[in-house]
């Protein structure tokens, strides 16, 4: 075998990788919804980042109160005359922050617990899994509410508190995946090669379960957002500790969502616009999650394509030396 043959093998492997990526992307785009969701979430992130720089804090003007949607105020104005669109744009960042922070913390804790349980096994596995079972059966939102009450009401603290109590599902899933990796032959070869537990956990187990965890993360963001609406509906800011004042930095979409119900009669835009933005955000996240699940599942049939958009990469076997 000549050197050329080896180099050709490498080329074919790289082509195969490219082809697998294209197929994965096609599975992701299978029914179009995940792409729409991805574009929508990207748009929301851009608005959330750029928005506070191009808008001003909405001013209070009671002569402009409760105006219906118009060209000057596309989403109408609120109870004190603030522009609702500006409020939503400025509150979007905190809301996304809650979702991403909460999901990141819960996935991080769940990964650590789950991989430790899966890799070490034995008594550590048993103890950690009983602990996880306990975390499943406690009223998590009460503890989250308590953390918010003690640490103060802000987007960071809401995300942190929800993340600290909702890791159990991630831990159970990570343990199951880690066990499936551990029972394969790859783990035997890693142990025979002299890898430590830390090395095996970070270099062998984590990369193999990372893709599933990304899917879980996306669904978890939606779940954390839903839980934060419930948490905020319980009104932690009106607990006597915070003095009944809306603290600074709590300009959230979720607050608008909570306050809109009272003005449903007569001023329906105050209810429907924040709810619409919130629901479309969560549905877009669910679509992305579904697309990622399809991406990771190669057994799902792809729709037939009527024409090929990329050139044939695999040449005839006889053409190669």
């Amino acid at each position, binding site marked *: 075998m000549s050197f050329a043959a080896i180099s050709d093998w490498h080329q074919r492997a790289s082509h195969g990788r490219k082809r697998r990526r294209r197929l994965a992307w096609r599975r992701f785009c299978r029914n179009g919804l995940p792409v729409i969701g991805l574009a929508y979430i990207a748009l929301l992130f851009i608005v959330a980042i750029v928005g506070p720089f191009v808008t001003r804090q909405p001013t209070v003007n009671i002569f402009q109160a409760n105006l219906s949607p118009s060209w000057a105020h596309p989403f109408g104005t609120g109870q004190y005359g603030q522009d609702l669109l500006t409020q939503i744009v400025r509150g979007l960042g905190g809301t996304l922050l809650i979702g991403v922070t909460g999901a990141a913390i819960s996935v991080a804790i769940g990964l650590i617990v789950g991989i430790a349980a899966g890799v070490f096994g034995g008594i550590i596995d048993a103890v950690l899994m009983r602990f996880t079972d306990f975390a499943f059966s406690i*009223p998590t939102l009460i503890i989250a509410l308590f953390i918010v009450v003690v640490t103060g009401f802000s987007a960071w603290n809401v995300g942190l508190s929800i993340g600290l109590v909702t890791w159990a599902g991630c831990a159970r899933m990570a343990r199951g995946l880690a066990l499936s990796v551990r029972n394969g032959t790859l783990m035997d070869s890693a142990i025979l090669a002299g890898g430590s537990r830390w090395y095996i956990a970070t270099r062998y187990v984590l990369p193999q379960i990372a893709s599933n965890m990304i899917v879980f993360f996306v669904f978890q963001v939606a779940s954390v957002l839903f839980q934060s*609406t*419930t948490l905020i509906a*319980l009104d932690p800011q009106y607990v*006597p500790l915070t003095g009944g004042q809306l603290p600074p930095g709590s300009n959230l979409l979720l607050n608008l969502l909570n306050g809109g119900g009272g003005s*449903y009669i007569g001023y329906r835009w105050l209810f429907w616009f924040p709810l619409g933005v*919130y*629901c479309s955000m969560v549905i877009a996240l669910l679509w992305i999650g579904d697309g990622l699940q399809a991406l990771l599942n190669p057994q799902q049939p792809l729709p037939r394509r009527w024409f090929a958009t990329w050139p044939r990469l695999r040449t005839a076997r006889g053409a190669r030396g």
Partner: protein
Amino acid sequence: MPGKRYRIIRVIGLRIAVIPMLLCILIILGNALGYLNPAATSQSSAIPGLSAAKPAPFWHSVYTSLVAIGTLHWGTGPQITRELVLRSLEISSILTFGSLFVSAVVGIPCGIFAALKPRNPLWQAVSAFCVLLGQVPPADMAVILIFTFSLGWHLIPLSYGWGSVADAILPIMTVACFNIGYMVKYTESGMREVMQRSFIAAARARGAGTASVVAHHALRPALTGLLTFLGPQTPMTLFCTVIAEQAFAIPGIGTMLGIKVTTYGAPAFGSGTTLSITLFIFGLFIMVLNLLIDIAYLWLNPLAD
């Protein structure tokens, strides 16, 4: 199947034995968290002229919780008697189980039809709509339902509080809307997966019709996936019940949170006793719900023995 029955009884017995232990841990956790709360001891939250509440000793909450919800001393507020606690537990049980029943009755058939008819736009739209319903926050869903069914179409009389059957309809619908979303989603995905298995093809080859295949072969394995998801979801169902109770002014388990109650000078939420008893009552509810779901799982899962 005596083997399966024995296994189910053993697993359930173990679960029941663990519940008191977990409840004790919850009481200790509540007390530990209560000592972290600056409001429990500081004067800052007190009304001027009144002294702040003294934190209750540790044994107080253990005693009050472990005498199985006897006469509770609720912060510095009114005495909450056993009758009141049991009544609120009863109301919340009706709401929670009623909503689970309604969402199962509506959601599981929708999921099955959406899985069996992937090309039918009507069932796909129904499925997507149910998933959307599940994402609407319960506080807003309560507002939508009140304004649609009570004030808009005058189908259900609007009355706050608890007393008649009509009072339970809208709260149950509010919580059921949350549950319907994932019931449809997980039934649909489970049913899609099961219908591709070989034993379904075998049953079809033996001449069974679609209804028979779904009812006798596919439904049980398809529902196990839903039940594994339902277990971790019970706390969220309970909190949706609490939100619905707040929206419709129903004196259920939500009053235990003591948040909307103004207790002058006392920490309304966060002292060790209050927190541990709240955790105790909510934890008891969630553990009983989880136990019932485990029983249903063992009963439904064909691989249980």
